[in-house]
């Protein structure tokens, strides 16, 4: 299939244009360098590939290096029929800087290129106009005025692009062009400045609103308070806003369980459905709304442009721990999932800081820990509210757990930054960050991102939890039937491993659930749901927390489990991603063991001292 490639500077509306052309919903975010992977979709008879944003063809960071490398490969590929270079109409100089370098490369490789002058709606709102024909003549390439947000000019753009792609591209000899010396872009830099002076908007007009908001959000006092408030509300909302939705899901599962078991009547099938399916799998599904709320809020912060400011605010404090302000974005994203966060660390300018960030990302509390936290916080902390319901004690405990994860990550970073780990100081790049314009998030991609985060969570963990729930139920049900868990196969295995968990103040059931959750952390809740369901105390999913309370889990042992889950690296997918990104099996093995030992010591201390 012939291919059209989409390139441009970060934060210029490129990803939204890709969505509008392909109908696919991918991550669209207002933070420089968010597209760290190639995205592709079908655009009529062509494959449209969205390349990571780059400021220049001379790369500075790892993500730019990947972008430039991939662009060069695509230029050499005879299947590449056309290049679309996306320009931000309100930021012409910085867009053209990359655009004209790209044009020089396209010319060298004999590939046709068009410019999409995006965000034309914003430019018009500022009362600015551009003579497209003249700009097209000056650039020596077709230019289409569009707005990927309002769809202005998109129909004409599609027709024009398809017609141009149809024309045969000039065949080039790949070996010959690859051997050419690198281009000197100084002429393109000069030209882009001249064109921006002729066609671009006045910077005082473009930057006025942004600077007014920044004077508040970046000031020492109000900026610091706003940052802390945003972060606190983020973590509070995970518990407060998601509660009604979680109650809804829980009630629905409860009603379905009653309906289904009424149909089957008493017996082994009813026991299986109640304990393994509704008790095990059901108790994990209850936490999906919390993951959706977390993804929604991070997405809103990202798309609004605030996250780049947060990175700036955090730069100095993070630098004390050997990290960069850019480490903040992967750290925050890691609260949804560690895997995209590890990939996002590619935007960090310094290889050393990037490595430290990647190694400490697993300490951020990802969404997989949410079910564990939510269950144990409900068991250990009273549901008390203060200030008319604004502050919830359980929500504050949640905040405390997230904070403990962050604090541990900072301490580990400090230790790693003092070590000889990746001692490549020569390539230690400085912190240079573009602050994007504040924008209202586009709701469509945002809602899609929220839905896909829920889907990914269920699809990724659901099958494992189902298998584990099934396995635990079979081992716990036989050979004694529904009566005696103590004498079941599971009881025998549990008692065998119990000495390992005795210093943590836990009995064999928690031991089984913790061991099972080394596949994926969410399994812990499902496994306990099945184990306590089998125990026959209460078959209602809502009663799991009450069952654990009634069973006599001590505060120290419960807190120990929580801290264990904050620190231990129990995700196979994260380990695989870390290995791929660092290229070192030895380092990642040491990391898994190190975090495991630390988690065990913390849990034992909690159980003994609290």
């Amino acid at each position, binding site marked *: 299939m012939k291919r059209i490639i989409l390139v441009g500077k970060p934060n210029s509306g490129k990803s939204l244009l890709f969505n509008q052309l392909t109908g696919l919903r991918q991550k669209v975010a207002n933070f420089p360098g968010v597209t760290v992977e190639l995205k592709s979709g079908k655009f009529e008879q062509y494959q449209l590939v969205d390349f990571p944003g780059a400021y220049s063809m001379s790369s500075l960071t790892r993500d730019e290096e990947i972008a430039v490398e991939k662009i060069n490969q695509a230029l050499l590929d005879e299947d590449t029929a056309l290049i679309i270079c996306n320009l931000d109409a309100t930021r012409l*100089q910085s867009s053209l800087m990359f655009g004209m370098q790209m044009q020089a490369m396209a010319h060298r490789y004999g590939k046709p290129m068009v410019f999409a002058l995006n965000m034309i709606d914003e430019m018009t709102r500022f009362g600015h106009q551009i003579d497209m024909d003249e700009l097209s003549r000056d650039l020596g390439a077709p230019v289409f005025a569009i707005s990927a947000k309002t769809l202005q000019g998109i129909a004409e753009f599609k027709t024009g692009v398809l017609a141009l792609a149809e024309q045969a591209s000039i065949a080039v000899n790949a070996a010959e062009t690859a051997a050419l010396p690198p281009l000197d872009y100084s002429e393109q830099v000069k030209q882009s400045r001249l064109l921006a002076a002729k066609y671009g908007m006045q910077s005082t007009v473009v930057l006025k609103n942004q600077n007014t908001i*920044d004077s508040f959000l970046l000031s020492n006092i109000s900026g610091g308070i706003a940052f802390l408030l945003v972060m606190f509300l983020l973590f509070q909302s995970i518990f407060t806003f998601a509660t009604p939705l979680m109650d809804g899901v829980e009630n629905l599962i409860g009603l379905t369980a009653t309906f289904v078991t009424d149909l089957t009547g008493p017996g082994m099938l009813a026991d299986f459905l109640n304990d393994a399916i509704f008790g095990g799998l059901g108790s994990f599904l209850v936490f999906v709304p919390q993951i959706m709320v977390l993804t929604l809020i991070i997405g809103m912060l990202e798309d609004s442009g605030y996250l780049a400011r947060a990175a*700036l605010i955090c730069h100095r404090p993070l630098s004390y721990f050997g990290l960069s*302000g850019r480490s903040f974005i992967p750290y925050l994203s890691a609260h949804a999932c560690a895997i995209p966060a590890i990939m996002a660390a590619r935007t960090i300018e310094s290889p050393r800081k990037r490595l430290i960030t990647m190694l400490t990302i697993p300490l951020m509390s990802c969404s997989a820990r949410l079910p564990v936290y939510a269950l144990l916080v409900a068991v250990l902390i009273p549901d008390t509210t203060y200030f008319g319901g604004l502050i919830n004690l359980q929500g504050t405990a949640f905040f405390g757990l997230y904070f403990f994860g962050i604090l541990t990550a900072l301490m580990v970073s400090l230790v790693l930054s003092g070590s000889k780990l990746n001692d490549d100081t020569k390539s230690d790049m400085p*912190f240079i960050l573009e*602050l994007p314009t504040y924008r209202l998030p586009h709701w469509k991609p945002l809602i899609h991102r929220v839905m896909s985060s829920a889907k990914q969570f269920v699809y990724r963990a659901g099958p494992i939890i189902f298998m584990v729930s099934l396995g635990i139920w079979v081992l716990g049900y036989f050979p004694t039937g529904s009566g005696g868990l103590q004498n079941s196969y599971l009881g025998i295995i549990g008692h065998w491993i119990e000495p390992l968990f005795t210093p943590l103040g836990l009995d064999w059931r928690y031991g089984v659930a913790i061991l099972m959750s080394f596949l994926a952390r969410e399994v812990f809740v499902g496994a306990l749901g099945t184990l306590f369901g089998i125990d026959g105390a209460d078959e209602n999913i809502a009663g799991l927390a009450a069952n654990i309370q009634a069973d006599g889990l001590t505060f120290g042992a419960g807190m120990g489990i929580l801290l264990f889950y904050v620190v231990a690296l129990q995700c196979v997918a994260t380990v695989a991603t870390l290995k791929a990104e660092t290229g070192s099996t030895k380092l990642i093995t040491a990391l898994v063991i190190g975090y495991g030992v630390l988690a065990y010591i913390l849990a034992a201390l909690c159980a003994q001292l609290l």
Partner: protein
Amino acid sequence: MMTLWDASGGQTVMVTGIDAGVDLSVSGRLREMGLDDGHHVFCLRRGPFEGTLVVAIADCVYSLEQKIAKKIQVKLL
């Protein structure tokens, strides 16, 4: 010699040079951004905790850390 880091919020400065010790890829990027000899830079503010300097260069706003801002020589306008 005044450096960009010495500029206060609200001041406009003109770039006069970049320290020769700066890595070539970094100085190249700085020049592309507009931190090139003879170009004007408007200093907006210092970031919180004195960690970075926020400057407007052409149509963009950038945040630069002290380490690099100290290597850009400027003249107050």
